[in-house]
């Protein structure tokens, strides 16, 4: 502790260099905090709970068929695919988590339909699709045969029986029992018969975090009004083989259709494809952090080496008048600690500023203090590690240097 004052006095003589290193640390601190925060956010987003039994599901998208004969196509596909060994179920479903945002609807609980309050995604499917999804019911009941009604205007049944997610129920009817409640979209009426734990919207990142689970499952019989999207259920171990056989079987079952290969796949693959960009972004951020740490460390090594070389004589004198090797070592370590601390103090301000900017442009929240503390510790350690080499060289300066060339 008593060493701090002479160190500060020495640093004052190297204002420019000290300032540069502190500035570098400050910038590194700001970028480090925010980059880590972004990484954690991305990883969090990538692990969104879909609410469906992903490992045993695959999804198939067909296009190019005659819309007037959708019913016939659905029948052929269901019969044809069900015959493949290992297929446990095939259902008609308009979309799937990590597929296309095909049906986004504004909803209102106002019977006069004046104020639309929420934007939700509707999954519209038959009984087999609901069985395949394997949603976890937390209240109410699953649809019975009577609840699957025929679709009007190619949208949903006029009076739909729906399952909604818990987060949607809590947001639409806070503190109330959502079962039996009604909502509307244009002149279509929906009644809530059950609440499920989770069901993510198909493209979770297209919506602010709070609304990523605002989904409803609408029970429907597809008829001629809906088709082209099929959910296939199989044992997880057999699913890859089953899906390969499905792809081989399609040209025989329905020669007229065009398979949408981007939209079709095992659900695990669809999830992976959907988050590919996020994974790339996490990689880029990690790369930037690594490069940043390396550059900062090298900067510290360079400057510390210079100072050691420049002060060889002073070190020699100190050693000659009684300072131990440990004292010299500690001198450089404390010096580094002080510079890094200055940098961190300034860096915290910068980090919060950067966070405010990011909050405006991106969907991030306030930077939690834990990131600042962690970054500070990492930078302190990095500084100590970087200065260790030069400091040990300084400690090795023999006292006899003091007697030379004075």
């Amino acid at each position, binding site marked *: 502790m008593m060493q701090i004052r002479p160190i500060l006095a020495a640093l004052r003589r190297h204002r420019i260099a000290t300032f540069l290193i502190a500035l570098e640390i400050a910038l590194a601190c700001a*970028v480090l905090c925010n980059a880590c925060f972004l990484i954690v956010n991305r990883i969090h987003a990538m692990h969104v709970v879909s609410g469906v039994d992903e490992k045993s599901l695959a999804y198939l998208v067909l296009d190019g068929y005659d819309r007037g004969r959708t019913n016939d196509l659905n029948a052929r596909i269901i019969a044809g695919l069900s015959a493949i060994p290992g297929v446990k179920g095939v259902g008609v479903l308009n979309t799937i988590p990590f597929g296309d945002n095909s049906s986004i609807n504004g909803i209102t609980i106002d019977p006069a339909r004046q104020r639309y309050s929420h934007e939700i995604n509707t999954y519209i499917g038959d009984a087999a699709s609901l069985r395949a999804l394997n949603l976890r019911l937390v209240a109410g009941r699953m649809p019975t045969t009577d609840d699957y009604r025929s679709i009007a205007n190619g949208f949903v049944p006029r009076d739909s029986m729906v399952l909604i997610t818990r987060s949607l129920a809590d947001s639409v009817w806070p503190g109330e029992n959502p079962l039996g409640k009604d909502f509307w979209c244009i002149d279509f009426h929906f009644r809530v018969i059950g609440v499920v734990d989770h069901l993510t919207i198909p493209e979770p990142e297209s919506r602010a975090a709070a609304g990523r689970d605002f989904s409803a499952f609408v029970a429907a019989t597809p008829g001629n009004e809906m088709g082209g999207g099929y959910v296939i259920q199989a044992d997880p171990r057999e699913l890859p083989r089953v899906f390969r056989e499905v792809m081989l079987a399609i040209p025989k079952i329905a020669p007229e259709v065009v398979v949408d290969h981007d939209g079709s796949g095992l659900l695990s693959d669809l999830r992976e494809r959907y988050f590919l960009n996020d994974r790339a972004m996490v990689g880029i951020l990690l790369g930037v952090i690594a490069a940043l740490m390396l550059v900062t460390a090298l900067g510290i090594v360079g400057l510390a080496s210079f100072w050691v070389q420049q002060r060889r004589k002073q070190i020699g004198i100190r050693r000659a008048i009684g300072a131990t090797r440990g004292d010299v070592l500690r001198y450089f370590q404390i010096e580094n600690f002080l510079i890094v601390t200055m940098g961190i103090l300034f860096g915290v301000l910068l980090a919060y500023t950067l966070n405010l900017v990011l909050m405006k442009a991106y969907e991030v929240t306030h930077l939690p203090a834990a990131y600042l503390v962690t970054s500070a510790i990492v930078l302190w350690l990095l500084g100590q590690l970087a200065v260790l080499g030069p400091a040990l060289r300084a400690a090795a300066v023999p006292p006899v240097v003091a007697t030379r060339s004075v």
Partner: protein
Amino acid sequence: MLSYYFHLAIRSLRHNKVLTGLMVLAIAVGIGASMTTLTVMHLLSGNPLPGKSDVLFYAQVDPNPNGAASRHQEPPDKLDYQSAIDLWSKHNADRQALVVESPVKLSAPDVKRPPSMGMLMSTTADFFTMFDVPFQYGGSWTGEDDARRSRVAVISSELNDRLYGGVNSVGRTLRLRNDDVRIVGVLKPWRPAPQFYDVAGGRFSQGQTADYYAKPEDAFTPFYTGLEVNDGHFEQFNCWDAPKVPGHLMGAGCEWIGLWVELDSKAKVTSYRSFLANYAAQQKALGRISYADNTRLRDLMDWLQFNQVVPSDVRLQAWLALSFLVICLCNTVGLLLVKFLRRSGEIGIRRALGASRRQIFAQCLIEASVIGVFGGAGGWLLTLVGLGLVRRQPVAYADLAHLDVSMFGLTFLLAVLVSAFAGTLPALRASRIAPALQLKTL
């Protein structure tokens, strides 16, 4: 003198290869990262139609008849059928094009290939002249074809390569779903970035706008021809009323058509604005719409700006790279300072022997610039590597990532500026070394 300083610089840099290497590397990595991301930004935020963007306008009215159903700060991004046709058929602009995109099944009766899915642009004849679309073979259809709903099409060079092996396919037949159209034109490779005439809905996209940089459609047909052959496969931007037949949006309460107009003078812009306002007022009086004062006429660049077309990830990467460059710069300044001050003795002697401050400064700056040139060259190579990595990303704009002449020049300029900037402070400091003090300590 300069060549001598240059010689000295090389000698001095050789003297401590590790330190020199570090500085060059730091500048190279900083410049490489910055230029990669800035190049992507530059490509994505550029003007897709330079010289013409300020005479092209996107017309919007708010066709919703349903009073309080939504908030209506901005009109919807597209028009309903009625408004689009009303505005278009008045021909109040120098040129005008209706645009609507839809997925279509493509095949050619005289080519043995399984059908594929592609995109169909249903538009009007002015489209090609308005947007400077280049033709390889043939040309556009005429206004008369628009009126007669002729079964004709213009196809992209990619579709022409895929179906016909790149030969002149004008006059051949293309099948869109179940209907045949005659090819009248084949485009040259055309890749506007973004695909500006289709941009809409950016404010609802949470920054996920990479798909605006997709390739143009495979086939283009007269507006009504497209609506007929691909009936039942149109997608709405938004609806206030459910369409009676899904995918058939003519007359439905849906917004799904874009209208671009070309207005060659300020006066025409003003008069078109009042034309829009009058139209909305008239429609409100008729009771068809409820918001007469909610019309817009943005020019092309304003429309792109309004839709925030540059993906938020790309902007984030650019900011990251720039802050990284600043850190690298700090680092280089520090290391150069160390390097010059280490030679204080040498500089002291030169000063004592008569070198002026200016000469010392010039010498140090040249040494810094040499590092800058090497760093710049390295940065340029790393930029090429970085853009190669961008091209491998699974995004719609991946194939656009290349270094054009202006960015190539900017890379070198940035490198030299960065190193000169990095060198100035240490060189100044070195030139102020007092000779007497240094000579005493020798």
